[in-house]
């Protein structure tokens, strides 16, 4: 409701550019307190100057007037500040509560602070040095520190939270203004504390955010499929149920020597574990269920979580650990020099031109 009073999100003399949905309330309170400040400073200082001039000593031996106290006056100037303080407290607490209570249906990003850089881990496992967020969607940041106390601060969002080692802190942000904003560390963390910067890019819409994430997460041409398959195995929870040692038991069948092997199915038939079987099992685990693990299969569907080339990478990885795979030798290769993840040439205090 206060937004109408402060329609202009551009930076003012006191406050930086405003780009989050809760910043307007915050700025309203800031400006309210600012005016209270100005009123009382001017009042007190003006009275002080006035008294100094009006009641200046006329002669060296002069005495001031009598009068030691006035209870009514003193109670008045105790009560008025009290009322103002209670008002400010109430609004401050209300605004804070809004920032403290996480809205549902948020998007989760894990923030890792270390001496002296930030990394942002996306749900698909992509690790970014910059924070990219979709607009008009509450984004929940889970903060963790690798070493000392840091503090994530985004001035344009009026948002800040300490990043504590040994515990998780959470904060949420929601921006309605696409652009690039500063991300700073505000808890002193050693030598290069002042270089612990990053930037927050608010994408134009959800689609462009998804496209960005898809583009940066595309590993093709940078990582060998076989390596990427191993990464997915470790990252996406495959390792929780499928072991690589061939040991019996567990929630799912071992991957050792699985590819090319004959799999007994729950409906009594068998099938050769080939590319088609692997892909089908990842996308629709209930289609062909291993005899010992179901029905129903305890495995969740990964439909939508993996692209075709991701599944291909997993297949390559399975091939490389299977003695039943009869094909050319799968030597993992690495591309020299990974693609730079930081886009060069950006200025430090990048803010959108208004």
């Amino acid at each position: 409701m206060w937004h109408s009073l402060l329609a202009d999100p551009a930076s003012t003399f006191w406050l930086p550019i405003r780009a989050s949905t809760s910043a307007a309330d915050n700025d309203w309170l800031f400006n309210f307190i600012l005016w209270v400040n100005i009123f009382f400073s001017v009042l007190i200082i003006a009275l002080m100057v006035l008294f100094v001039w009006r009641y200046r000593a006329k002669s060296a031996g002069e005495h001031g007037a009598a009068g030691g106290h006035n209870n009514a006056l003193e109670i008045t100037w105790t009560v008025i500040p009290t009322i103002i303080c209670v008002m400010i407290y109430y609004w401050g607490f209300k605004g804070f509560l809004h920032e403290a209570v996480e809205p549902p249906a948020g998007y989760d990003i894990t923030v890792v602070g270390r001496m002296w850089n930030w990394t942002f881990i996306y749900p698909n496992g992509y690790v970014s040095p910059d924070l990219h967020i979709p607009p008009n969607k509450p984004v929940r940041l889970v903060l963790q520190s690798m070493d000392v106390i840091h503090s994530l601060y985004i001035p344009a969002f009026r948002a800040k939270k300490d990043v504590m080692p040994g515990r998780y802190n959470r904060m949420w942000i929601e921006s309605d203004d696409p652009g690039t904003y500063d991300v700073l560390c505000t808890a002193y963390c050693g030598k290069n504390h002042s270089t612990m910067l990053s930037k927050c890019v608010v994408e134009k819409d959800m689609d462009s955010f998804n496209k960005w994430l898809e583009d940066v997460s595309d590993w093709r041409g940078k990582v060998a499929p076989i390596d990427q398959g191993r990464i997915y195995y470790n990252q996406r929870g495959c390792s929780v149920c499928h072991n690589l040692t061939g040991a019996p038991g567990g929630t799912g069948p071992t991957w050792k020597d699985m590819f090319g092997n004959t799999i007994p199915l729950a409906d009594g038939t068998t099938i050769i574990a080939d590319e088609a079987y692997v892909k089908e099992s990842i996308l629709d685990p209930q289609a062909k269920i291993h005899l010992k693990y179901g029905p129903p299969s305890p495995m969740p569907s990964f439909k939508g979580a993996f692209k075709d080339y991701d599944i291909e990478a997993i297949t390559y990885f399975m091939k490389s650990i299977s003695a039943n795979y009869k094909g050319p030798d799968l030597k993992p290769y690495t591309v020299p020099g990974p693609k730079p993840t930081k886009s060069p040439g950006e200025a430090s205090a990048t803010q959108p031109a208004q």
Partner: protein
Amino acid sequence: MSTVESNVADHGNGDAAHAPHDPHLAHHFENPEQQYASAKLGMWVFLGTEILMFGGLFCAYSVYRHNHPDVFALAHEALNRWLGAANTIVLITSSLTMAWGVRASQLGSTTALRWLLGVTILGGYFFMGIKAIEYNTKWKHHLMPGSGNTYYAWNGQTPVKGFFNEEPEGEKTAEPTANKSEAPAVAEKTAPQVAAQAPRELPPGAAPDGNAGQPDHAVIFPNYQTPKGIAAKFGAADEQLKLDDLNTGDKQRLYTFFAVYFFMTGLHGLHVLVGMALIYWILLRASGARRRLWLVPAAPMSVGLFLAYLGVVCGSPRLIAIGVAVAAVSSLWAVVRYTIKAPRLATSEGEFGPDYYTPVDLVGLYWHLVDLIWIFLFPLLYLIH
């Protein structure tokens, strides 16, 4: 120098012009009652600050106990509660003799005062002796505070054999190097266990492309993962808690208990030493010894302390022991001599009597405080599980 001495005398013992009657009345007080009340107020306030200081420690203790109840339940088994109980009795007794001594000084019975003070100091020696035995035992089992502790190594996820999982016989005197050499073998076994403890929010292996590393050392164990039920079960069924009952996070924190134990008892022990020194000073004044003779026992004591210091520098436990023993015996000898009032020492009846017993009273208060703190420390560290 002479100006200084006169200056001190002027203030300390009172200006003749101001207080011709009472040599103990300082010049800025009007009468002995005011001076006594001021001193007593100041001492009480100072004792208040002491309690607040230990209050901080008790607060830290509570926080850790609340967060890791199992650690405390298991680790306090390493303390010998009988030695602790003995020390409690010793301190309470010495508090009694101290209070009695204050009364004796108020009644003017100087002989009783000397003997009671002597017995009180002996209580201090007894206490510190038992404490030394306890500390020595901890040291032998590598249960010292900080990185020397056996369980400190658990932090690097490298469990080693220690007090709670060592063989009952023969192992206790093993060299620390021998213990550590076994570490890698055990490490293999517990490594998966550590991984299983890792919180779920932490994306496992979140470092595909070198942009970010694994959490290299700050393994996060949120408090809610601590199964607090074990401690409760242990208390209810009166059943021995085993090292294996602890989860990995708590195993890694076992040594914190010893840090807390040594810090609390060490600071308290320091207060006992200060208290003993103060009572010694009161005893000297009560025995009426010539001031010049006060320094005589100081010579062997200094030699002993210097030897102990050399021992610390050279890392020789034997030298430390010898030094401490020399200091203890020489001071003990002095205490006995002043208590029985060896004729060669005494020149007067002693300073304290019904007119002036403020120092005895204040030192007595201090000694009671030291006693009081121990009465809290003993159950908190030795008894509660």
